[in-house]
Structure formats: structure tokens, C-alpha cells
């Protein structure tokens, strides 16, 4: 297993990597280039690469254990917006048991696994990319460059364009939102995903616009 964090700033990942103390390669992608190249439009997602360097399973949602959030009782005494958020989180499809079993099958059987796909099918199943998605990628990359060289205000305009062009790309949005709402010098990123005053968008508003938590992830086609 190899993990890769799609994070502009490596220091944001360190506390999580250190806590996990991984024995596998634990990498950082400071330019979101793996998103562009493999099709990681949300996290967690995973792709499978065989011994020859060939992708045998395209990028898809990759949980291997059921999140406790799926089964929580939503408190009645919390703000309505938080209730709505938790309701949609609980609605996110869970394929963790099947996906874990599929990985183990591939590890054991290799190319003979029914979950290892031929090259044409891998390409066909990869994320769609039309003109808008490609332009969104360019806009997001330009924003990353300007964040580093000219500052946040210069980056925002390009990230807004990226968000408008590709509303299905959650890493572009979540990265930008978090940078807005995390105080400088904070130990950990703010995860509220509420940057509506800057971007006019937020996690829960965009999830609802998409059709709810049930449509939030790239479901594995097993």
C-alpha cells in the first residue's frame, strides 16, 4: 500500500502521518497532480497498479471500514445546519466491506482476480474529462502557483473559476475552503468546510445541490 496526501502544504499532513506511523510509503502531493493524472476527485479514493506498472483498477471511493459517523444518532439539540450535514454524511454510500474484499482478492489472485480490469476498461471507467474539467484543472493549478507566489487573494479568483467549472471535484473545493477557515498557525486544519463568504459555496450546500450524500462519492463498480 502507498498513501498519498493531496495537500498543498506538507506540514498539514505531518500530524496525521506521525499518528499513523505507517510502515508503507506515505507520500505527499503538494500540487494535486495525482488528482489530475489518476482521477482522484475526492478523498479517500484509490487506484490499483500491477507489478508491470499498469493500472488495473481506476480511481474510485476506497473506504475499507465503515465510518462511525454513518451510524451515529443525530442529536436533536444541535443547529439545523449541522443536523442536515450529519444527515447527508450518513447517506454517503458505504462499500467498505466489498471494497476490502476486492483488494484482498486481487492481492491473492493478481491478474486472475475478477476485480482486476483490462486496460481498455480501466480507461473507459476513469473519470470523465471534458473541456470544462480540463480547464478547471488548469485554473486550480494556476491558483496553487499564485497562492505560493502572489498570495491568497490572487489564488482565490482562479480557485473560484475551478470550482465553477468542475463542481464534482471535491479536492479542489475542500483544499480551498480549508485554507480560508483554518487560522494561521493552527495545529490542525479546520474541517467545517464553510467558506461561503469567500467562495459562495460550502460542503453541505454543494452536497445538497448535487442531490445529497448518496451522490457524494465515486462509488466502486464491483
Amino acid at each position, binding site marked *: *500500500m*502507498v*498513501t*498519498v*496526501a*493531496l495537500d498543498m502544504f506538507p506540514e*498539514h*499532513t*505531518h500530524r496525521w*502521518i506521525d499518528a499513523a506511523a505507517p510502515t508503507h510509503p*506515505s*507520500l*505527499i*502531493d503538494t500540487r494535486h*497532480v*495525482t488528482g*489530475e*493524472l*489518476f482521477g*482522484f476527485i475526492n*478523498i*479517500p*479514493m*484509490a*487506484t490499483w*497498479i500491477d*507489478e508491470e*506498472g*499498469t*493500472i488495473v483498477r481506476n*480511481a474510485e471511493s*476506497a473506504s475499507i471500514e465503515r465510518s462511525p459517523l454513518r451510524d451515529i444518532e443525530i442529536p436533536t439539540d444541535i443547529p439545523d445546519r449541522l443536523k442536515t450535514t450529519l444527515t447527508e454524511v450518513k447517506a454517503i454510500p458505504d462499500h467498505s466491506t466489498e471494497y476490502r474484499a476486492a483488494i484482498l482478492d*486481487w492481492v491473492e489472485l493478481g491478474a486472475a482476480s475478477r476485480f482486476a480490469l483490462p*486496460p481498455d476498461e*480501466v*480507461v*473507459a471507467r*476513469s473519470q470523465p*474529462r471534458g*473541456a470544462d474539467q*480540463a*480547464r*478547471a*484543472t*488548469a*485554473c486550480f*493549478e*494556476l491558483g496553487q*502557483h*499564485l497562492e505560493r507566489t502572489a498570495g491568497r487573494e*490572487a489564488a482565490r479568483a*482562479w480557485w473560484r473559476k475551478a470550482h465553477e467549472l468542475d463542481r464534482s471535484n471535491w*479536492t479542489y473545493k475542500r*483544499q480551498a*475552503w*480549508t485554507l480560508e477557515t483554518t487560522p494561521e498557525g493552527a495545529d*490542525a*486544519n479546520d*474541517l467545517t*468546510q464553510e467558506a461561503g463568504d469567500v467562495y459562495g459555496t460550502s460542503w453541505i450546500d454543494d452536497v445538497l445541490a448535487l442531490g445529497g450524500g448518496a451522490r457524494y462519492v465515486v462509488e466502486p463498480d464491483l
Partner: protein
Amino acid sequence: MIITDLEGVSIDAFAEATGWDPKPQGLCRGEVCVPAPGARRDDGTIDVAMAAERLGMPLVHDPEARVWALGPGTTSGRVLSTAIAPDPPLIDRAGEPFRLSSLHGRKVLLVAWASY
């Protein structure tokens, strides 16, 4: 791909950043080649605008910052145009460079996550 000089992009830099290698027969990635006569220049640079047009890559410009960003190709209509795994430059926890190709010969389950 970030570009600060549109006329000075080397063939090697273009290939490294985009995965499309400018060869005499065209712009190639794995077994796929897209004809682009004239895109590969004799001085070792590439005509970025022509390559972008042939590969369906958007070229976005910020005139104030004097910088361009070249987006990914759209020829296949999908993120992948081939099943050959890309090999982007990544770093590890210590900031050291790491390439997925260094794991050749082993199965790789590449899991994407983020701190956000």
C-alpha cells in the same frame, strides 16, 4: 503545468509535466500518438499552443502575474488515455523525492487522502 515563458518550454519539461512525449511521429503517451507536425522544434523547445490545441489542453493565462497554466488533455474524453500508470514527482514525510516507478515489480494500492 505552470509556464512563465510560452516560447521557452523544453521538450523534456513538457514531457515530464504532461506525460506526453514530443516525438518525431507526434505527441506520444504509451501506445497512443497524436500527430502534431511542427510542434517539436529543432531548438529543443515545443510549440505549446500547437500541442495544446492538438491534445485538447486548455491554456489559461493570468496577464497580471505573467504566467500560464496548461491543463490536461481531453483527447480520450476521460482522465486516463492509457492504463500505463503515470509517475508524478511526489515527496515523502521527510520531503525526499519519491517515484511510484521505484515500486515496479510490486502491486501498488495507491490511496489518496488529505488533511482536509
